[in-house]
């Protein structure tokens, strides 16, 4: 449920990028930040650990503006993908409005994608929320590696592995090149609109 402050008339939309370690969640946010920081005028907060792995989360907030008397603010979060940081993942998921599942296209990580999705399902269940009801977008990342002859999973395979039942909108993407990063983000924000409208009513 979005956080709505009736006094200050502020609406916070919380989007979480979820997915296996090294899938490209942080890179999604970094692209958005690098390309648009002049326009969105905020800072990105990244808590990193050993090397460039995410320890707690990345956080990138920005204002959409005042609409119908409400200040609409979007908060993008990433979770740490490494298996051992499950408690942080749970924490970050609290109060989430929409989820981008960043899957890694590399053939060698096929299983990890599925395990991470299962982990998402379980962690949402912990908050009594259903993965089938929450706004969700699938992103199949790193397709640029096809150019380099790296064995990749096709979008069809990924759809079959991850999205057969969920039937969420899906995009192939290259976070590192920015391909479909913005599209993914817009899509997930728009998917949260009906619920937020419901709350405002």
């Amino acid at each position, binding site marked *: 449920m979005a956080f709505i402050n009736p006094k200050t008339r502020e609406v916070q939309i919380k989007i979480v990028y979820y997915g296996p370690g090294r899938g490209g969640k942080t890179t999604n946010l970094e692209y958005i930040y690098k390309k*648009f920081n002049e326009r969105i005028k905020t800072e990105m907060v990244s808590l990193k650990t050993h090397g460039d792995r995410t320890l707690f989360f990345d956080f990138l907030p920005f204002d959409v503006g005042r*609409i119908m008397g409400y200040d609409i603010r979007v908060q993008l979060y990433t979770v740490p993908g490494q298996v051992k940081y499950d408690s942080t993942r749970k924490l970050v998921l609290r109060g989430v409005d929409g989820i981008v599942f960043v899957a*890694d296209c*590399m053939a060698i990580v096929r299983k990890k994608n599925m395990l991470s999705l299962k982990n998402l399902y379980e962690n949402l269940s912990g908050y009594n929320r259903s993965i089938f009801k929450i706004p969700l977008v699938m992103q199949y990342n790193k397709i640029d590696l096809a150019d*380099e002859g790296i064995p990749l999973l096709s979008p069809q395979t990924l759809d079959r592995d991850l999205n057969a039942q969920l039937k969420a909108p899906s995009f192939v993407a290259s976070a590192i090149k*920015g391909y479909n990063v913005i599209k993914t983000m*817009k899509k997930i924000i728009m998917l949260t*609109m*009906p619920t937020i409208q419901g709350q405002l009513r």
Partner: protein
Amino acid sequence: MTEKNDRDLSVEVGRRLDNLFGDADASGEKAPDADSPQDAGTNYYPLRVVKANILSIDWEITDETIAGLLKQLDLLRKTYRDDKVVQILIQMMISLGKYIKVRKGQANVHSMKVLKSVFAGLEKVAGGGVEDPDRKMEILREKMREFHALQARVAAESGKARSAPDREAAVSALSAEELRQIARYLADDLRRVIREELRLLGEELRRR
């Protein structure tokens, strides 16, 4: 809010997002183009395999992924028997691979970065992207510097582990003796690489 306002909110948010981030379809994001010119190196099949190996290690360090890399590097070394610069670059990668294999998650934070960087050099030199011998030597020296810097860091780390056994032992599953072995191994390896480098420089000078 009324029903109409509800729709308006969604439309308006969409409009604002377009204003902020541009219309996604026209924001200059282009699909990676399979036909676009690439590093000559990455098109050469054995190098591509090595690259895939490195990516998989970057993703997860297991005995299996590293064994895959070491095997490919060994093949590559045979393919490039006659190219000294390539030989040294590969040797550095093998050393790094073995070090990462032993230390796994405890490996120095920079070791993957150096491995990738040396590979980038190898891609240029072995892939035919760089042909000028001076430029090749320049690349080699640059990668050697990175390798040396890492070696110094690793040596410093293993020294620390010996002087502060309690804390370090808790962090690292390796015994002081194992760490000493690794340091010794790296030093031996490094000496080999440096010897190669000197010989190569000598040959270069003789040719001039």
